[in-house]
């Protein structure tokens, strides 16, 4: 692969991820609206929101770390995008692998924690402590699932995993080979997306949107961009691990949108879990299922 080719891929992958992520945010809001028997936002609403936030005239910064924190939050996801293989583009996926990705995916949360810390708003501190606890909750089953998948395929290379699955056709997909791990992964997804019912760290009515409490203008816009990447990452990661990646863009998009849509349509029906309940739930069922799944695949 030539250098120019690689550079083009590294630029294109985050861009594509952003556009697809916008679509996912729209889908999420439409699903929520339909479940509440509303019409929902217009097609370009996520774009309007982000453009409006970036064009606010007052940009209230609480200091250097506040700004760096948001850059880390968005930048961490942009880095993660180059590690996720999509049809026709693999970027750094050959070199990085799933372990690097798991590390890189922690950067946004930590960046957010730094940025919110400088705002010195008690609501923000409560929110971010809850967010980091939630991260602790879903990372254990997530790492177990990744471990099991890497064991089965004999590699941590995401591009190779996709190639192995596609050789066997739908029968060879990770979902068929290790259903228990796939189920554990599916249960972990909503927590990774930070949406209902695991969004106690946002909780608008009690801690005033937690980490976002002091964010305005472009900082809030940065978080809106981050949300697009977050949904996209979750969708693509699950598709790559269990649904055979994408043969072409059409099947790829269908798969990743379905992966995000399924937990979301179930989740919006439930109220929020408290932080300790999130921890208890995550460490009980997905971990249990993942451990059984591990035992099955390792025999």
């Amino acid at each position: 692969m030539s250098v120019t080719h690689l550079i083009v891929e590294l630029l294109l992958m985050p861009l594509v991820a952003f556009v697809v992520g916008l679509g996912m945010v729209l889908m999420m809001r439409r699903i929520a609206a339909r479940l509440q028997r509303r019409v929902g936002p217009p097609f370009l609403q996520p774009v309007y929101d982000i453009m409006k936030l970036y064009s606010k005239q007052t940009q209230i910064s609480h200091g250097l770390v506040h700004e760096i924190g948001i850059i880390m939050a968005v930048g961490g996801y942009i880095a993660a995008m180059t590690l996720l293989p999509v049809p026709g583009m693999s970027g750094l996926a050959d070199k990085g692998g799933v372990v690097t990705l798991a590390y890189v995916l922690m950067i946004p949360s930590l960046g957010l924690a730094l940025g919110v810390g400088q705002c010195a708003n008690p609501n923000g501190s409560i929110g971010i402590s809850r967010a980091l606890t939630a991260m602790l909750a879903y990372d254990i089953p997530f790492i177990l699932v990744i471990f099991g998948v890497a064991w089965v395929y004999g590699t941590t290379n995401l591009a190779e995993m996709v190639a192995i699955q596609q050789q066997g056709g739908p029968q060879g997909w990770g979902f068929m080979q290790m259903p228990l791990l796939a189920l554990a992964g599916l249960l972990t997804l909503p927590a990774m997306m930070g949406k209902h019912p695991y969004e106690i760290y946002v909780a608008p009515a009690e801690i005033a949107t937690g980490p976002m409490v002091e964010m305005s203008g472009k900082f809030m816009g940065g978080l809106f961009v981050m949300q697009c990447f977050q949904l996209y990452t979750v969708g693509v990661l699950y598709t790559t691990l269990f649904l055979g990646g994408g043969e072409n863009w059409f099947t790829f998009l269908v798969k990743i949108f379905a992966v995000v849509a399924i937990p979301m349509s179930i989740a919006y029906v439930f109220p929020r879990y408290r932080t300790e309940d999130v921890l208890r739930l995550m460490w009980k069922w997905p971990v249990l299922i993942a451990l059984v799944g591990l035992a099955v695949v390792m025999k």
Partner: protein
Amino acid sequence: MSKDDLLQRKEQELQVELGRKRSNPLAHVFDDLVNFCRSRSMFMLHYCTGCGAIELPPAMTSRFDMERLGIQPMVTPRQADILLITGYVSIKTLKRIILTYEQMGSPKYVIGICSCTVNGGMYWQSYATAKVLRHYLPVDVYIAGCMPRPEAVIEGLQELMEDIKIGRANSWKKYFQNYDYYLGNQQQLFGEAWQTPTDIIAEARHYDLITDQTLGEYTALLEKHQQPLEALEMRLQGQKEKQPL
């Protein structure tokens, strides 16, 4: 009367520049795009006063669904664009409203819902109610009624959207341009020592919105009484150590 004449007369009435032309045609295109996005994405602050608040849940939920117009509730003034004053404003509440308004990021819009914000409504004779809201804050849109139905609220919001789209909703600039007037009215209610944590004059200077109406006798009073802001001491109040059993 031609359209230009009308525009000019409106400019004189409102004392703001409408449809300011720039030399770079692309800059205007971008401004129009930004104004359009601003009009289609309005975050309203979830802060309600008085009884008109009861009309907002139906306007937001499935029956009338404001989200299809891009309007959604936000919980902190930092994130919000619109401040809805839904009903009578007691003097105590007005302090909070002004604090909230000053912490919102510009461009920001104020909507007065219910008759009480227009002229005091049925609280006209009350000693504890601030009667005319626009004496204390610049108001973009009034929605009269006691109370206006959700349709009327949405109608008012659509009017605001239209104003934002053509760049006419500039009342937030008026607050900086005529700060002395608003501060004078606020001081009349709260006393001479009234001050807020937000430095409006510095902000007006930042946006280059200082006019001869910004500073005056009331801002001089403010400077006389102003205490420098200090960080609050962090401690838990009213918690005594429990005696061991």
